[in-house]
């Protein structure tokens, strides 16, 4: 009975009520959307590297090693000498090891030297492999494979020649040994997209005539001669390691960390990613805070709407009272109205959020490499909806109490 009255009253004021519902729906959609992006970003972040059991580099901190070896942010404090690399590689626990060598650049992108095996071993998003969008893996010494962002930004195609610059922000280029693009990778949403990948031997090849970080004047070894050289690196920046038996991971990690010929560090990528997220994850708290504010604002808007409606509904209330409705009924009706508004708003908000995710999902994935899962609503999301509805009921108590008090004496005395 009260519900019917409440619904009838809401329908009668369709425009204002509609606007309030819309405000609540948008705020709920925003809140849930932010939550979705947050969990999606966290998952995408954690999925940057998978399938690699350990990352080995010179001893620094686990986050730093992760930053320069996987995210190509910052620089290595030291390199991993080739003999230590060989020692690690020859350990029986190791199933595969992929060296990476950083330090040179092409335009704004980093150049990474590695072995062709990198493309089979580097996995992202729970075991997904890197795929070639165009072309194929490196086969020649001066072949290069570029990430999707590199190709898109610089408008490169398979077969184009590129010249690698020495160092990260320098004007000296390895002009004598140009590379040819042999393949372009699919977008992965990982730092691989922004990397120019060349062979480990090629990194040595372009530095043949270089000493002490500068090109030796007037000395250019012909490419034919370089091709015949052994080109064994003296050091690499880091190595990705896969392990034979997972139970041995910690033992190998400890053995590498205690390696006494050179201070080395082996990290578990998952744990280091988690540490890194703890540092940058503060921003997520801020995001949640802001979207919670928006929900609160919408609820206060609803409260204001009910308050202002009280005046215009004085006659309505008076008629209810005259018909025998008790003040408690008036109170109940107003609270019920608020609950109905909030429920519709919350459900609409949930629907809006899913619609948004459905539309934006492929765009966001392609643009930012951020995958937003469109899974069924989680318990948390339902809790958020419940919280919004309960908050709206609490917010409506104030105007409802006012109506309760007024309806006792007011209404009949209205002079128009």
């Amino acid at each position, binding site marked *: 009975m009260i519900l019917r009255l409440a619904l009838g009253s809401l329908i009668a004021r369709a425009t204002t009520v509609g606007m309030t519902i819309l405000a609540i729906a948008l705020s709920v959609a925003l809140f849930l959307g932010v939550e979705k992006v947050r969990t999606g970003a966290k998952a995408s972040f954690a999925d940057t590297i*998978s399938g690699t059991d350990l990352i080995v580099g010179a*001893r620094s901190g686990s986050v730093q090693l992760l930053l320069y070896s996987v995210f190509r942010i910052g620089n290595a404090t030291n390199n991993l000498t080739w003999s230590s690399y060989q020692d690690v590689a020859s350990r029986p626990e190791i199933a595969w090891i992929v060296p990476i060598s950083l330090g040179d650049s092409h335009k704004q992108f980093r150049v990474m030297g590695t072995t062709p095996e990198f493309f089979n071993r580097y996995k992202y998003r729970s075991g997904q492999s890197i795929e070639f969008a165009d072309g194929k893996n490196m086969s020649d010494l001066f072949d290069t494979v570029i990430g999707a962002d590199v190709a898109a930004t610089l408008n490169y195609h398979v077969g184009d020649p590129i010249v690698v610059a020495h160092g990260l922000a320098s004007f000296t280029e390895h002009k004598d040994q140009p590379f040819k693009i042999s393949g372009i990778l699919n977008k992965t949403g990982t730092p691989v997209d922004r990397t120019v990948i060349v062979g480990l031997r090629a990194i040595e090849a372009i530095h043949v005539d270089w000493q002490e970080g500068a090109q030796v004047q007037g000395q250019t070894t012909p490419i034919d001669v370089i091709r015949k050289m052994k080109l064994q690196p003296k050091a690499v920046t880091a190595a990705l390691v896969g392990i034979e038996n*997972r*139970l041995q991971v910690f033992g190998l990690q400890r053995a590498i960390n205690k390696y*006494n010929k050179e201070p080395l560090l082996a990290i578990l*990528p*998952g*744990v280091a990613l988690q540490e890194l997220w703890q540092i940058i994850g503060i921003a997520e708290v801020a995001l949640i805070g802001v979207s919670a504010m928006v929900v609160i604002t919408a609820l206060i808007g609803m409260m204001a709407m009910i308050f202002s409606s009280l005046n215009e509904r004085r006659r309505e209330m008076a008629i209810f009272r005259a018909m025998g409705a008790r003040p408690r009924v008036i109170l109940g009706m107003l609270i019920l109205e608020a609950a109905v508004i909030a429920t519709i708003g919350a459900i609409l908000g949930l629907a809006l959020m899913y619609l948004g995710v459905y539309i934006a999902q492929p765009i966001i994935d392609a643009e930012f490499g951020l995958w937003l899962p469109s899974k069924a609503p989680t318990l948390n999301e339902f809790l958020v909806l419940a919280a919004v509805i309960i908050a709206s009921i609490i917010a409506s108590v104030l105007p409802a109490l006012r109506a309760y008090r007024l309806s006792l004496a007011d209404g009949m005395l209205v002079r128009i």
Partner: protein
Amino acid sequence: MKIVHLIAGIALSATPSLAEETTQLDAHEHGVGQLNIAFDENKVAMELHAPGADIVGFEYGAKSDVDLAAIDAALQTLSDPLGLFLLPEAASCIVITAHAKLESEDSDHDDHDEEGHDDHDEEGHDDHDEAPGHTEFHAEYLLECANLTEMSAITFSYFEIFPNALELEVQVISDKGATAFEIERDVAKLDLRGIF
């Protein structure tokens, strides 16, 4: 009281014979131990590293009978993983191997600090006087569990048994990759749902 010694990769020049090798000390924080757990199919490998101060309350080379008995008792307790870490009944785990030993920081190879001290040469002793040798208990376990999927949580009675232990830094590796947790004395439970 937390004593943190973060001395890594410092070459000690006091001993000529060691001059060419680097000497390294692991981080050592009283009250905080490390526990590594690797899950693979139905096998569980666990490694515990705990400062001597957490387990027996001292880190000097034990000489008195009381201290030696305390170390023996601790090694005995540490050799029973299912008593330290309570696993769900439903997982039905059995211990395949369990080893526990006491390691001194002075040398990686000395299992028992108290024996090691007497063997050291004169120069070696000078180093010890400057940096007090910390000791660590190391334990390694291999378990086999019939229903690893039932491994929903681990309850740490470790903290009840060793009142000086305050925290365990736990690293877990499973099919889903590696994750880290911090288990503290007041909430001595590790939730493993979502790991498998």
